[in-house]
């Protein structure tokens, strides 16, 4: 049981992600999580307003089945299979303390950003909404996210995916090294 309760090491998790991609290809689909967001916009009626969402979403409804499974899987793992919080590198912990984040090594997500109290402040709410917004906008603009570009795209040795992944890292590094010191 220790194997389930402790953190799954990279050499277990990475191959399992590759296996998931393999299974989805064998099921006639592809591994990409962000297209479900487009499907949801379409189901929500966005096709009435914008052509981009006017597509036969019934063909893509399988990605919502995956999403439903992901939600339940996350719930099970978080509530029953994860007795310890992620244990982060010590230097990173100190850096986070300097930013005012002290929940490192005690919570799965920083309570300073994700707690209800933080969500109900203008700053806290904005961080969540803007973070999500950039993820959604950027994923569609780039035509994929971590799963679609970094995993599926690079596995297929596609140049566009390499460009996108370089973009992911430029954006991430700018956010953490240049913008974080300004907002925290």
């Amino acid at each position, binding site marked *: 049981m220790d194997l389930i309760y402790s953190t799954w*090491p*990279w050499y277990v*998790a*990475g191959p399992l*992600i*590759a296996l998931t991609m393999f299974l989805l*290809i064998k*099921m*006639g689909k592809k591994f990409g999580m962000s297209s479900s*967001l487009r499907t949801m*916009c379409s189901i929500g009626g966005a096709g009435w307003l*914008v052509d981009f969402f006017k597509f036969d979403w019934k063909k893509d409804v*399988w*990605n919502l*089945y*995956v999403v*439903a*499974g*992901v*939600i339940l*899987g*996350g*719930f099970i*793992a978080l509530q029953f299979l994860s007795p310890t919080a992620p244990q*982060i590198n010590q230097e*990173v912990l100190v*850096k986070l303390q300097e930013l005012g984040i002290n929940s490192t090594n005690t919570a*799965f*997500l920083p309570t300073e950003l*994700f*707690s*209800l109290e933080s969500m109900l402040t203008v700053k806290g709410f904005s961080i*969540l*909404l803007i*973070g*999500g*917004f*950039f*993820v*959604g*906008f*950027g*994923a*569609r603009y*780039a035509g*994929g*996210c*971590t*799963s679609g570009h970094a995993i599926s795209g*690079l*596995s*297929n040795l596609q*140049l*566009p*995916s390499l460009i996108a992944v370089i*973009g*992911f890292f430029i*954006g*991430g*590094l700018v956010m953490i090294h240049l913008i974080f010191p300004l907002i925290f």
Partner: protein
Amino acid sequence: MKQFLSFFVIGLFLGILFIKSEVASWFRIYEMFQFKSFHMYGIIGSAIALGIIAVKFLKSTEAKDFSGKEINITPKEKGFTRYIVGGIIFGLGWALAGACPGPMYVLLGTALPSILVLILGALLGTFLYGVLKDKLPH
């Protein structure tokens, strides 16, 4: 129903994997962009390495999918601007929210209302892209 179940089970497995490997943890993403841990790089790197082998194998054996149809992996369209600009915008959000689309769904399992704000943002972003699509350089 069978179709629903097979995709649902894949999702279930993936959801547990995202949590147990901690790729859905904001802290892990921060640590990755600080280059202070091999964990995330090991996961993404080994998934890609095995993925390359798997895709090569599927192509070279002209493997069929489970329903017997030919497997077609459509490559992304050629281009530069959309991938680099879209990628940078995505990266900014990934680091700020500490979650990409898969992990966002998984984090609903924390039962924190803040995750709904994150997903609402992602839906708004997706929607706005649809609105602006024809005006953006691609």
